[in-house]
């Protein structure tokens, strides 16, 4: 199985916050390669100053997020053999965030939103080493902790993708799963995480189109396992007086 070399056509967006355009290049590709390999080859041979973020090249760090033929993807996990022979592959920066240069965007929005989610709060009297939790109970939160913070879900979410004005009041799918993770953590005692998600982080603006779930490279069921359960319980608690009473007594508001 010797490596098969061929030429591929790439159309790369180049520019900065002020101005930019798509540029066509032709570059060699080998068997088994991913889009990030091709971009690196362009960098090494034709455009030494082409800006692209990447780190692990294994789908574990979530750095090389970009849009490939208009779809939010990790360049390191996009195999070249998924494209048609002779197809031109268009590579552009994430649309929901301001461009810094070429394929690199300013994703600081996400770090600001992370700051707004209250931290994990264990019972004050529980000492290190004394935590006891069952596997079945931690698994729900573990699913959300698989998140590699690639922010593809944030990029694709139509609430902010073309609506800069919504960013102020909307945390986005990445932080809905962060809130859900803490809410479902067996030993988190902070109350009203779901209400806060609704009232402060814009959960209500999500209308469950599941775009975020579709682009998640970790296959986290963002909509089904985080967003919908939180929405349902918020509704339950808001309109059911018995459950409202229950929520005053135990942390698990609205959960039977």
């Amino acid at each position, binding site marked *: *199985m010797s*490596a098969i070399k061929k030429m591929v056509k790439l159309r790369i967006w180049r520019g*900065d916050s002020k101005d930019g355009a798509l540029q066509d290049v032709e570059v060699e590709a*080998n*068997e*088994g*390669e*991913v889009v990030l*390999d091709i971009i690196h080859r362009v*960098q*090494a*041979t034709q455009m*030494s*100053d*082409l*800006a*692209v*973020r*990447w*780190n*692990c*090249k*294994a*789908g*574990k*760090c*979530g*750095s090389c997020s970009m849009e490939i033929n208009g779809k939010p993807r990790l360049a390191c*996990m996009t*195999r070249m053999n998924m494209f048609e022979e002779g197809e031109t592959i268009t590579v552009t920066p994430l649309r929901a965030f301001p461009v*810094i*240069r*070429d394929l*690199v965007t300013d994703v600081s929005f996400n*770090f600001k939103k*992370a*700051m707004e989610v*209250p*931290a*994990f709060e*264990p019972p004050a009297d*529980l000492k*290190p*080493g004394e*935590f*006891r*939790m*069952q*596997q079945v109970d*931690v698994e729900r*939160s*573990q699913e959300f*902790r*698989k*998140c*590699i*913070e690639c922010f593809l879900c944030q990029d694709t979410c139509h609430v902010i993708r073309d609506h800069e004005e919504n960013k102020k009041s909307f945390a986005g799918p990445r932080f809905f799963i962060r809130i859900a993770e*803490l809410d479902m*953590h067996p030993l*988190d005692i902070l109350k009203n995480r779901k209400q806060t998600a609704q009232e402060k982080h814009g959960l209500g603006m999500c209308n469950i189109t599941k775009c975020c779930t579709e682009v998640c490279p970790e296959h986290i069921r963002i909509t089904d396992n985080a967003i919908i359960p939180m929405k349902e319980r918020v509704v339950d608690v808001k309109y059911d007086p018995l459950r409202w009473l229950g929520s005053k007594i135990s942390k698990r508001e609205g959960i039977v």
Partner: protein
Amino acid sequence: MTNVEKHEYDVVVIGAGGAGLRAAVEAREAGLRVAIICKSLFGKAHTVMAEGGVSASMGNVNSDDNWMVHFRDTMRGGKFLNHWRMAELHAKESPDRVWELETWGALFDRTPEGKISQRNFGGHEYPRLAHVGDRTGLELIRTMQQRIVALQQKDARDHGDAESHIKVFAELTITEILKENGKVAGAYGYWRENGNEVLFQAPAVVVATGGIGKSFKVTSNSWEGTGDGHALVLKAGGRLKDMEFVQFHPTGMVWPPSVRGLLVTESVRGDGGVLTNSDGIRFMFNYIPEVFKDKYADNEAEGDRWYNDQANNRRPPELLPRDEVARAINSEVKAGRGSPHGGVFLDVSKRLPADVIRKKLPSMWHQFKELADVDITESPMEVGPTCHYVMGGVEVDPDTEAAVEVPGLFAAGEVAGGMHGSNRLGGNSLSDLLVFGRRAGAGAAVYVKQNGAASVSDSSVKAASDRLNAPFTRAGDENPYTVHAELQQTTNDLVGIIRTRVELEEALVKLAALRIRADKAKAEGGREFNPGFHLALDLDNMLLVSECIARAALQREESRGGHTRDDFPKMDAKWRQVNSICTWDGSKVTAVTQKLPSMPKELFDLFDPHELEKYMTPEEMTAQEGGAK
């Protein structure tokens, strides 16, 4: 220098992986103002790539485990070249460091009693690795990142500004540690985004920059592993210890070419994966070294029984320390018994049901499925050695992580040396980060309280700025990518797993020639997020580190752990008594030997003397058994 962006902090932490973040937390909690600097975005450091787990003798799965067993395993794994005090502190403190993560929100996999589950790993006598599937590094980095955010949220409440006491400077590269009057005074660097220069004034700097893998061609490391910290410390007058010891992880992917070197976690073997050659033979049984004969099964039946009954069986040799397995694979491939793409086969499909594999090794399953079209629940993986970790690093005081010879400088994590001796056990890296990251933060805090603020002179800033701008201003037309590729080929061919005097001498000649070319590496384009410019600067670090590795490797005339000399194939007890020390005088690297501190009696007595006889000279044994320190 009025146009340079300036910041003043108590401590500057370079690197935002596990060690850097743990140091920052400790320094902040001691009341200090801390700058955290990372080359990537916050939360992307190479720590995320750690898969198997974090070792800590909590004894949750086997209650016979304790710090003394962990200490013994660590010293054995390092072939007794470890600094005993670091190995001791590490073994004693790692359980507390893991439990602490839980209080910050980490969610490890559980035992049926609801405690943190622990898995088997190479070289560890008992199941010891706390883990989350095979994404433990991600859990660790995210937990630390979220701990930093929690501290910032508290600062926002207490001081009205989230960044009043901890600020993360992401996508910023440090090019120099600045000193005044022989002491650390700050650090200098540039924003990757726009190339603008930044001056940090601080009396203490913690270096936590990780590894050096990018000096090698086949590596599991990301682009960040360019040995920045190693080089920064050398240039600041510090010393690098034991740089010849480079760990080649036995199981990296070998195909397709674009992912060659990518890590395949040791958990695959810990959970039952077996290594076979093209003849279908489980070859590891032929490679059990004399020193490990009584600890490892010499037949398949016993090795297989061990997975269910560890009290009455010896472990399978697939779980030998990494250096042994890597050399064995290398030998099989060289003998013509390799897999189609130049590795060997690693098979877990015949040992575990498909759903268990997907559950225990989810990211391995994805990695092979998505990048190699291989379903590991049905077929074997092809694997081979990949440059993974450098045991060598900054010589530090074991208790405070203060760098020897440079007041105000501290180092922790992979960039520090001594803890792992000649070979690191899997799982001992994440625990190293936590134990010594915390100690470095504490060491820096004590130092700052005793020494007060620091300021940097204009002349130091001017000199640092000139060096930083050299890729734009210098004459020359070398392409930094080409020089880098040739460096990687040189280390791969001449300073790799198996080394000889002739090849190492050739490597030094080639490295000298590459250095001249690197000094002509030119950055094209502007200052904004320009990877060519960044690489031109990083090249200097990679060349310096590679030279240290080659010089130290040439000096050590024996084979031990992550250093194998074809011309000196045996371990030599005389060489165990010395560490190698590299220094830099501004133009050349010098390697010398330095006596290894000897274990105190109470630690010596933790071992069976018959085992120690395999490593120590008769004189040492007599001295130790006589009770001398």
